[in-house]
């Protein structure tokens, strides 16, 4: 009974340490500084997408900035998962959302909507040779949609769906509209149902393969969402919207972003090699893919490096905490805390930890710090066990030898045990660091554009999956290769004393 109470206590303590970040000062007070934070999901061109500079751009972004200008507030755009947007409004980490969001009764229960700024229609995109002509034809087919969008609702069979009634209709939900289109291009689905403008965009970019089907079954209104009851901001947005509609700014933006969405024609050529080179040029040069990737590479290296240092430092401390148990030959408070930490961190997915760190603890702010902390904390648990194993692998005689010469436990650790343990630890530690670099590829989920996310963006901008993804894979491989080389060199040096 008492034992288990202690264990529970240790676990709680660890949780407290983990949640310590919660009490970070949240430096956001929108009204005071006249900066409003606006969430979007920059994967819905032409309404929002990642521009050439790696920042969110698009019609929606231009609209909210124009409204800010006439109403006298600054706009800070935060890019996050579409599904997180409404939740972030409720928790207060966002002031407003503009993300091509359709007004629905369901959403109205959680947020308040401004006046509609755009009327959209769901279009069907199919292959050129398809015989699908209407929404009803999609019954029993495979349909790709963007997860959580109106297209998703429209195509999912259910009680209140009177068009798609066939239970065998298969709906594939993609994070991004472009992924849905790539899937259609690859023949994985029969049709894509998506908002009118992105649909027109996609078809214009793939005019040799795709065609558009207009079915006016569903029209919908896009509006800006604010937290429920935030009438002050809502009034400002509505009045701003009215003003920019009146002074012609709005129409200019429509012309610039939506109607003028230019077609990027890929040059076609009979020569396979020429075509490949053209493609390469198109994917990496013409659309500034290489810049995005270089930036992403920097982010991947930066996050991995900082998290690695943090992980090693944490792991070292945790290993020493856990070793008090070996020294005292019984469990100690320290070993229990470290044990609980390692247990919890190893028992939960890194992805979930990252989301908790970013959305719960950091309230969707300071994404980089959240990512570094999250990966560092995660890595620390594994590093701790590596270091502990490395220390335990040093013969007990070494400790006795040191102690018998009058060294304290700490001195023996420092001068005798640790220098030998490092040799045992390096291979496992290197392994962990390599894993860490690759594991950072999930930071895209907290809207950080790392190498993987950069590749992802290039896919959605070029509608080509092969080249960008292979390029990303090659860059990761090169990083790991370099790390392996460095590790081998370190190991060789440390093994000096083993030579006979």
């Amino acid at each position, binding site marked *: 009974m008492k034992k288990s109470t202690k264990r529970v206590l240790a676990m709680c303590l660890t949780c407290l340490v983990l949640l310590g970040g919660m009490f970070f000062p949240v430096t956001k007070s929108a009204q005071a500084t006249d900066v409003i934070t606006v969430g979007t999901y920059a994967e819905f061109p032409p309404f929002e997408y990642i521009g050439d500079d790696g920042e969110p751009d698009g019609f929606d972004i231009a609209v909210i900035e124009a409204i800010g200008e006439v109403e006298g507030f600054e706009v800070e755009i935060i890019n996050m998962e579409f599904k997180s947007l409404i939740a972030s409004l409720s928790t207060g980490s966002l002031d407003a959302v503009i993300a091509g969001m359709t007004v629905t009764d369901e959403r109205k229960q959680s947020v308040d909507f401004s006046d509609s700024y755009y009327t959209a229609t769901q279009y069907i995109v199919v292959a050129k040779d398809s015989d699908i002509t209407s929404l009803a034809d999609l019954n029993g087919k495979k349909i790709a949609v963007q997860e959580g969008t109106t297209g998703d609702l429209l195509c999912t069979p259910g009680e209140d769906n009177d068009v798609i009634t066939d239970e065998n209709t298969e709906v594939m939900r993609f994070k991004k509209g472009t992924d849905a289109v790539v899937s259609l291009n690859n023949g994985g689905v029969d049709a894509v149902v998506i908002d009118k403008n992105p649909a027109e965009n996609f078809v214009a970019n793939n005019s040799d393969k795709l065609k558009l089907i207009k079915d006016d079954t569903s029209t919908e209104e896009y509006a800006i969402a604010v937290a429920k009851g935030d009438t002050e901001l809502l009034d400002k947005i509505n009045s701003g919207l009215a003003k920019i509609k009146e002074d012609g700014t709005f129409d200019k933006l429509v012309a610039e972003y939506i109607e003028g969405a230019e077609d990027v024609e890929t040059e076609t050529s009979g020569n396979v090699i020429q075509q490949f080179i053209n493609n390469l040029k198109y994917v990496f040069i013409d659309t500034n893919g290489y810049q995005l990737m270089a930036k992403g590479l920097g982010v991947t290296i930066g996050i991995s490096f900082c998290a690695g240092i943090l992980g090693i430092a944490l792991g070292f401390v945790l290993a020493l905490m856990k070793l008090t148990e070996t020294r005292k030959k019984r469990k100690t408070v320290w070993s229990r805390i470290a044990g609980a930490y390692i247990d919890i961190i190893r028992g939960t997915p890194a992805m979930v930890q990252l989301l908790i760190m970013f959305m719960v603890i950091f309230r969707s702010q300071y994404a980089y710090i959240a990512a570094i902390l999250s990966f560092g904390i995660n890595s620390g648990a594994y590093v701790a066990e590596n270091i502990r194993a490395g220390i335990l692998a040093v013969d007990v005689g*070494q400790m006795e030898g040191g102690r018998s010469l009058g060294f304290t436990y700490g001195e023996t650790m420092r001068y*005798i045990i640790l220098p030998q343990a490092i040799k045992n630890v390096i291979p496992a530690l290197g392994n962990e660091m390599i894993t860490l670099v690759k594991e950072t590829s999930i930071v895209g989920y907290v809207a950080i554009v790392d190498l993987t996310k950069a590749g992802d963006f290039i896919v959605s901008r070029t509608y080509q999956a092969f080249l960008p993804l292979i390029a990303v894979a090659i860059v990761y491989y090169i990083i790991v290769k370099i790390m392996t080389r460095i590790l081998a060199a370190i190991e060789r040096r440390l093994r000096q004393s083993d030579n006979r």
Partner: protein
Amino acid sequence: MIIVKDLKKYFGELEVLKKIDCHIKPGECVVVIGPSGSGKSTFLRCLNRLEEPTSGSILFDGQDIMDRSNDINKIRQKLSMVFQHFNLFNHLTVMQNLTLAPVKQKLMSEEEAKKKATELLVRVGLAEKADVYPAQLSGGQKQRVAIARSLAMNPKAILFDEPTSALDPEMVGEVLDVMKTLAKEGMTMVVVTHEMGFARDVADRVLFMSDGYITEEGTPEQIFNNPQQERTKAFLRAVSNK
């Protein structure tokens, strides 16, 4: 030099040392013999508290080593130990093995320690091995380095825990020779060993341990030529038949 009174040691429920009393005088070479499991090594390891005694008192050079207010690390500087498995620091050269403790514990300057180490290596016949790593030495050489390392601390006494048990037979002699010289020079030594020849030739006094007690003690002649206890006789018969 070392006065042990009523020493007891339990490993959990197991009573390994039941009641040990003995007095080791300065300059004396005391050899502890006895069947395995009799507690010889445990007794030796209690003397510098590498093994925590359960009860009793141990005085070294007038200091009670059981007294928590006495710094055990300071005591160990003057009470060295040589181990069965040498316990040389594998990541350091022979020279560094000898100088690490004196220098880091600020007992000597780097130069002094090196000078002293060189002298000691000459004494154990390993002057040319100063810059090699332990992995490159034979077992006998390792143990001689270990003895030199314990001497580098300028100890008042040295504890030897079966120093030749892990050696190939042809290397035993070189280590015993070094120990013999040390004894002749008047170093206070407590030696746990199975080398009866060494006990007979070098010891000032022999302690026979069995079942957690010192059951018989005396000069080598008394113990080897005229043992009183049945247990001692049986042990000596067994080792001489080997």
